């Protein structure tokens, strides 16, 4: 993503709007600023405590994912043996918190198959982040393309595209995702595809709304007069100015994607065992929740933290990028 807004003319960088409302008045860009919209936005975003908390949480999860083999004390998939017996469903035991040092130490206990829950959680962060990212990127690419076409060619083609988007939006997203995964067959990749398909309309709508307002602006007319046409006009002039609502939407979409991947895996449609994924960890331990709840508790907390991180950052970004909200 380019750090500079691509429009050559003196267009306020904030010329965007997430809804159908007319664009806000030239968001009064301060004179003499050189830093550019995105840097300012990031700075503004992380001035808020909530976004900072989100940033910290996300950094922790990113660190877990990146350093998983170094952090995880055991294998995420191999059952552990204690004295020749599989260490099934052992409660969390940390010496610092009062557990006898003579007992085997497991920060988050072991699951019913004798695997270390903490190690599985650490490795699970990789799948969660990757799946979320893949789902968002795929939905973004397709959604942006459709939104650009629908906004730029607002005639029958645009209409047809948007009506299809309406139809997709008419289904509860999880239901549609479940059906799509069932059609494609269970598995992580198919779950990612399903979640992307379900969220495409959201991006398409956001982009189309921006394009509709941007293409009426003077700098676009000027570009046209200079002979800029077609893909170049759309990709180099219009799209960069439509990015802000899109970035916000994508960050928030990341949260939804992570949640939905976990939900699908919980229903047995995403990641298959024995691979470590938070949703499928919960599903796998569901039958023992009444006797050893720690196996369900920790993966859920991780999902919550991960989703929360993206929501907090997304909210902060929205506040920072939406000139109407500057109070």
């Amino acid at each position, binding site marked *: 993503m380019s750090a500079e807004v691509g429009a050559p003319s003196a267009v306020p960088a904030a010329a965007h709007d997430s809804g159908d409302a007319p664009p806000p008045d030239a968001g009064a860009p301060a004179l003499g600023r050189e830093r550019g919209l995105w840097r300012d936005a990031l700075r503004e975003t992380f001035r808020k405590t909530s976004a900072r908390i989100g940033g910290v949480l996300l950094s922790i999860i990113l660190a877990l994912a990146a350093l998983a083999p170094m952090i995880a004390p055991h294998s995420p998939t191999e059952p552990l043996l204690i004295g020749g017996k599989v260490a099934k469903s052992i409660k969390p035991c940390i010496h610092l918190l009062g557990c006898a040092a003579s007992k085997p130490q497991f920060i988050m206990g072991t699951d019913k198959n004798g695997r270390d829950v903490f190690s599985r959680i650490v490795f699970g962060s990789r799948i969660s982040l990757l799946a979320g990212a893949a789902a968002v990127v795929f939905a973004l690419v397709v959604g942006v393309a459709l939104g650009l076409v629908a906004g730029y060619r607002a005639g029958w083609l645009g209409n047809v595209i948007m009506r299809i988007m309406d139809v997709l939006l008419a289904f509860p997203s999880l239901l549609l995702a479940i059906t799509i995964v069932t*059609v494609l067959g269970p598995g992580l990749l198919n779950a990612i595809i399903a979640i992307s398909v379900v969220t495409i309309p959201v991006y398409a709508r956001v982009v189309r709304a921006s394009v509709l307002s941007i293409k009426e602006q003077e700098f676009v007319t000027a570009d046209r007069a200079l002979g800029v046409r077609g893909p170049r006009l759309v990709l180099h002039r219009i799209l960069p100015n439509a990015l802000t609502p899109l970035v916000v939407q994508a960050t928030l979409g990341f949260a939804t994607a992570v949640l939905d991947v976990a939900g699908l895996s919980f229903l047995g449609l995403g990641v298959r065992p024995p691979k470590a994924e938070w949703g499928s960890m919960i599903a796998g331990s569901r039958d023992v929740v009444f006797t050893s709840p720690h196996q369900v508790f920790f993966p859920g907390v991780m999902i919550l933290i991960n989703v929360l991180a993206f929501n907090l950052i997304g909210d902060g970004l929205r506040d920072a990028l939406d000139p109407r909200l500057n109070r």
Partner: protein
Amino acid sequence: MTRFLIRRLLASIPVLLGIVVVTFVLARLLPGNPCVAELGEKATQAQCAQFNHREGLDKPIPVQLGKYLNKVAHADLGASFRQRRPVTTLLAERLPVTVELSIAALIIAVLIGIPLGVFAAYRHNTLADASAVVVANVGVSMPIFWLGLMLQYVFAVTLKRSPLGLPPSGRLDPGIIATPFFERWGVHANGVFRFVSRLLILNGILAWKWAIVGNALRHLVLPAVTLSTIPLAIIARMTRSSLLDTLGLDYVRTARAKGLGEFLVVIKHALRNALLPVVTIVGLQLGSLLGGAILTETIFNITGVGQTLYEAIGARDYSVVQGFTLVVAIGFVVLNLLTDIVYTVLDPRVRVT
């Protein structure tokens, strides 16, 4: 107003048609052979041919679609392969279960979400506001299938012997049978009455059976709380930000300037206008509750629309998948339409556009 309504209604027709086509295509694309699913692995080819012929599965897809559209227009959604019962009958049985759960969840969400949002806006930039924002953010990020399991553990296992103990699954204790209210009234049962009688709590009230009402309520608490989490958080956030916007408007300043107490200003003047966008959010949430119902019903073992659909997808029960998805999606569209209309009635400014 009428013109707006007509335009809005006309605009939803292509969407509805699209929904029918999409559900049909999706159900057709489900892998696996319905004949094998129905007659078992040992079904001979002749048996399958006969089965396909009987179910109309041997015709070309467009012909099947045409037939299906025609049937849908006559409120015939086919029959379940597995249960050998019309899908409409199944729907009449399961839909009330989900409706009851969703309404309960929405009531919780509105009754807690709006006051929470108002409170946060009223105490803007205080610790109370920050805590409310934290609660809302955590709620929006909640994996509800996990929350459901944890609530089960806390209230059905840990607190089992205490007064706070709640049943972990089902709709009534085993052994309790809810007699439909119309039987007690001694009136003839029609479709609406049957539907209402499956809303256990309403049925209990109508039949004057308070023990059953209490029992059903106790069973409903955990699933309803689980399902309400996300809408509650969204409603609270929306109320807060909308009220904050309204509190900055001139007429609110006027109200303050003429000496009204802060409580009156917020509740009587600002809140009424601030709630307009909240109406839209509430309407939209009602639709998305159906998605959450799949997870909630699976966890709490409630045989509503969500669980039925999930099982039907696994079992390749085409007609059930088609019919249920169709009804859910149509319900979603209709709810959105109603929300729009309510919004227009409340806020005349919208009609112009």
